[in-house]
């Protein structure tokens, strides 16, 4: 202690400290370089060029990557016609700095029995490779392959995990009824699960993405069914007289929340999938429906009409501390939590149409995200940056996605499908 207290002037010491700190913070930025700070709402778009990959499927692959990155709104995609460097030329930063481009992606595709792709991401300012990676896939997996490349580029530039391999489960009309379908997040590769039943609704993912719970009416009874995507089987887990509609898996994956009118009026229940035990959460003459569990499993958002009209409420998982969180409008339904648990998204009627709104779990910060047509069943992407929902703004109902601030709304399902009730998968 004595040894170290030789410098007598404290101001001098503070000056040294300040110098070191300033010095350090300056260099830390470039050391752990984050090209786009996605947590900052004011961050500018990163100018990036995705060059066409060589090989016959190169164009398709680079287009998928381009579309993925473009939808995020975080990148400014440099037009191909403006590019000075031919995709086959060696990367030269001098060709890109005049265009203001900060990152360049090049790639090549070899097509044998499988597709083998090498993708390289360059940092223009530093003139170096940021990522070089080889991928291989059977030809039918060209889209997941391209999405994986987009995920790696996204991770290298933002430090965050991309959602480009995630899926959306939804409901679509088939025959005289409705069935459960699954597609890529960009609306491609739509697959019907082929589940029989009259009407199916409300697909809900397990947090590991291997299972889906949904509700279906079969033989004049509403049941809750568990679809195991790994072993491709489906089992009835609950049915009774009345209406039974699944809400959410609890985070442990062994329990789920649902609403049922089995005891008279719609109320909330939790069922354990292992011992089939059912716990009743609410008991009232009003409707308690559409329960959604917070990501930490501690809270439930749900809809109740006990105040005279359907409104969103939040309570603890043990059904204590019930609070109403919506006060504007006379019809607020379909609540769903953001992955961080800091927002609840729902559908609220304004005038004669349903619109998508965000609200904080304490009822503050109400924000309207849509204005055209009827918009229902909002569901967050696993990173919380995007929202899937259904809309009839272009005629028949389809699935749309948008950024979580309401920007860049677009339909992702084709006009030939009448689709609703989307749920975004975990990553």
């Amino acid at each position: 202690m004595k040894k170290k207290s030789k410098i007598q002037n404290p101001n001098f010491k503070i000056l040294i400290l300040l110098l070191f700190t300033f010095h350090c913070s300056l260099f830390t930025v470039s050391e752990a370089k984050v090209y786009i700070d996605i947590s900052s709402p004011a961050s500018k778009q990163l100018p990036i060029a995705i060059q066409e990959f060589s090989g016959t499927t190169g164009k398709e692959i680079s287009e998928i990557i381009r579309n993925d990155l473009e939808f995020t709104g975080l990148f400014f995609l440099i037009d191909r016609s403006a590019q000075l460097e031919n995709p086959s030329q060696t990367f030269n930063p001098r060709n890109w700095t005049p265009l203001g481009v900060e990152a360049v992606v090049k790639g090549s595709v070899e097509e044998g029995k499988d597709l083998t792709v090498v993708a390289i991401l360059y940092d223009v300012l530093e003139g170096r490779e940021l990522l070089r990676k080889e991928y291989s896939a059977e030809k039918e997996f060209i889209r997941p392959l391209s999405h994986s490349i987009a995920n790696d580029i996204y991770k290298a530039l933002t430090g965050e995990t991309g959602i480009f391999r995630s899926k959306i489960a939804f409901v679509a009309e088939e025959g005289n009824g409705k069935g459960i379908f699954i597609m890529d997040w960009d609306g491609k590769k739509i697959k019907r699960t082929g589940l029989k039943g009259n009407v199916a609704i409300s697909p809900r993912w397990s947090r590991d993405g291997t299972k889906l719970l949904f509700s279906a009416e079969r033989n004049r009874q509403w049941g809750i069914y568990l679809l195991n995507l790994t072993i491709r089987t489906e089992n009835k887990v609950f049915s009774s007289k009345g209406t039974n509609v699944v809400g959410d898996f609890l985070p442990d994956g062994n329990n789920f929340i649902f609403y049922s009118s089995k005891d008279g009026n719609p109320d909330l229940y939790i069922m354990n999938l292992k011992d089939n035990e059912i716990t009743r959460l609410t008991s009232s003459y009003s409707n308690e429906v559409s329960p959604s569990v917070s990501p930490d499993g501690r809270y439930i958002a749900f809809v109740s009409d006990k105040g005279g009209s359907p409104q969103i409420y939040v309570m603890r998982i043990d059904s204590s501390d019930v609070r109403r969180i919506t006060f504007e409008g006379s019809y607020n339904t379909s609540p769903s939590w953001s992955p961080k648990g800091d927002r609840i998204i729902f559908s609220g009627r304004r005038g004669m149409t349903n619109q998508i709104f965000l609200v904080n779990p304490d009822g503050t910060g109400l924000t309207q995200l849509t204005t055209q047509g009827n918009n229902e069943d909002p569901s967050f992407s696993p990173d919380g940056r995007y929202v899937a929902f259904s809309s009839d703004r272009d005629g028949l109902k389809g699935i749309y996605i948008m950024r979580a601030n309401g920007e860049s709304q677009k339909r992702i399902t084709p006009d030939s499908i009448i689709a609703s009730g989307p749920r975004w998968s975990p990553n």
Partner: protein
Amino acid sequence: MKKVFAVILMLVAGSVFFGCSQRKVVQPEAQQQQPAVSPEETKKKAPIRPEEKIAAEKITEQQLAKVETRDIEAPKYIEEKGVFEDIYFDFDRYDIRSDAKPVLEKIASWLLKNTSEKILIEGHCDERGTNEYNLALGDRRAKATKDFLIALGLSPKRIEIISYGEEKPLCTEKTEDCWQKNRRDHFVVLRETGK
């Protein structure tokens, strides 16, 4: 006290400096000013790769082939439709309207005469609510009718209910006429199979 404070400052400063000196010092702003490097130079510079190049990542995806549907049971009842007319509801409401009462009285007296029959009440909604909440509303419309029939002397055991919400519209135009047709309870006579 001052001395102790000063020591802490020194320690913090020292550790910060130490931590700092370990890092690679790269200044993008400075690089921007320099003439851009030629491709040859780029090649010579050992590229800094955040990930060592390893064997190609194999990308696959689970194929969702047809799922096996279990628990398909045979229907319990033979259904007879069109015996009774539908009754209608006001927008967002599930109370029984006065124009529905004659229909319900007819159903009650028929069931009181035909004691082996049961009845299924389907509750339906127009499309303007949200799908899930409409299922609850349809449930309440069917339940209201069931309660009305019980009040007219029928046993609850002879009345089944189910909600279809907005899932089974009769009419698909976006007009009040059409919406009114959809806000209905529909009746199905049930006969047990094997009878």
